[in-house]
């Protein structure tokens, strides 16, 4: 077993894991069920989290390799009482249907907007290329990311979800 310390949504969390345990399994065991399992092979993106600010597919990250890392999940990005503008934009734009991909999708959007504050549609599409959604056809998700970018740039009123 390996001892691992993570900063999970801002909280220091110590845990003991199997040497080949995957971060997705650890997070869900720790109660972080907003991180979803859709394929277990790194392809669908529903298990996406930000690890040290970068989007990763947690189902193919060894937990031990994330030791000392900062992990942000959708629940850490914002809450229903205090949503992040990206989350509010997803609600307003109609970008949430079944919502299974949404926690990963909002983090993919966050990872993009942290680096590219005013992305064009092509940049948004590329940034979301590892997060599959079967419900929306992505149209409203792209709307949501554009709208969130405007909000974060102070060009829009913050939408109240």
């Amino acid at each position, binding site marked *: 077993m*390996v001892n691992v310390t993570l900063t999970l949504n801002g909280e220091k969390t110590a845990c003991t894991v*199997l*040497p*080949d*345990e*995957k971060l997705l399994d650890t997070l869900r065991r720790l109660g972080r069920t907003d991180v979803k399992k859709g394929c277990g*092979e*790194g*392809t669908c*993106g529903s298990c*996406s989290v930000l690890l040290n600010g*970068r*989007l*990763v*597919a947690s*189902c*193919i*990250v*060894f937990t*031990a*390799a994330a*030791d000392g890392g900062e992990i942000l999940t959708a629940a850490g990005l914002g809450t229903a009482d205090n949503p992040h503008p990206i989350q509010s934009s997803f609600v307003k734009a109609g970008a949430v249907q079944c919502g299974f991909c949404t926690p990963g999708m909002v983090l*993919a959007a966050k*990872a993009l907007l942290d680096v590219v504050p005013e992305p064009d549609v092509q940049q948004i599409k*590329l*940034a*979301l*290329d*590892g*997060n599959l959604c079967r419900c929306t056809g992505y149209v409203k998700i792209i709307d949501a990311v554009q709208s969130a970018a405007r909000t974060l740039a102070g060009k829009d009123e913050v939408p109240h979800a």
Partner: protein
Amino acid sequence: MGRIQHYERPQKLDEALRILAERKGKACVLAGGTSLALRLPPGVDTLVDISRIGLTGLEDRGDSLAIRACTTVAQLAAMPQSRQLYGGLLARAALCVASTPLRNQITVGGNLVQVMPWSDLPGVMLALDGQIVIQGPSPRIVPLRDFYAAHPRNSLSAGDLVTEVRIPKPVGRVQSSFVKVGKTAFDYAGLTVTVVAWLSGNEVRKCSVALGAVRPLPVRIPQAEEEIVGRIPTRDDMIRAAARAAGVLEPSLDFRYSKDYRRQLIKVWVKRCLHEALA
């Protein structure tokens, strides 16, 4: 899960090499982990995490540029040198690898060593005359041309650790093109074509044509290259080069595409890539 007993997290290269030497054959190097997470090699009971031994980033080695093995594909794509050198070839190819989260995980070294038929970077590095730097019991520098003569898993021994890939800095005017063919944007390649042309005036001094996803390992196509080198290539030269590329290789089995179709893809895309690189 459950087969791995030990997780080693060395802080220095020496330490990593020592562990690999000690646990001969039972230890497996873990970098990005995207392959290992899905399939562990048989007999392995130890993972050696090399992400914290300073193997990230670029370094200037005089006439070559060293990309350290643990540099992620996303980092490679974002580096100014990747966008500048060789007409932006490295950045362009890196952005074609897998998907955003996976580009943050997959390392350059991992992509080159764990080479799958459809891996995107090996063909590019091969076209650039890259060299692999190996540390371990017998430190050595191996041209990729030799490295990919057989599968690296056969030439790398248990104590070996790939620490960087070196790319010669371009001399004179160099132009390039790259294409990846897949069913969707995020797909295992059905074909990758890399063309690099070193020019003096309009004449091609030297040319690389490398194909990925045709054979188990990436290959250079000297028969195509020789149609281009030493002249100012015409459209017919390019068509002839492409036809030779398509004729010289027997594509290995891929249940997604027929061999005939992949030959056609080679013919079309080598022609187009030559055209783009030499435009």
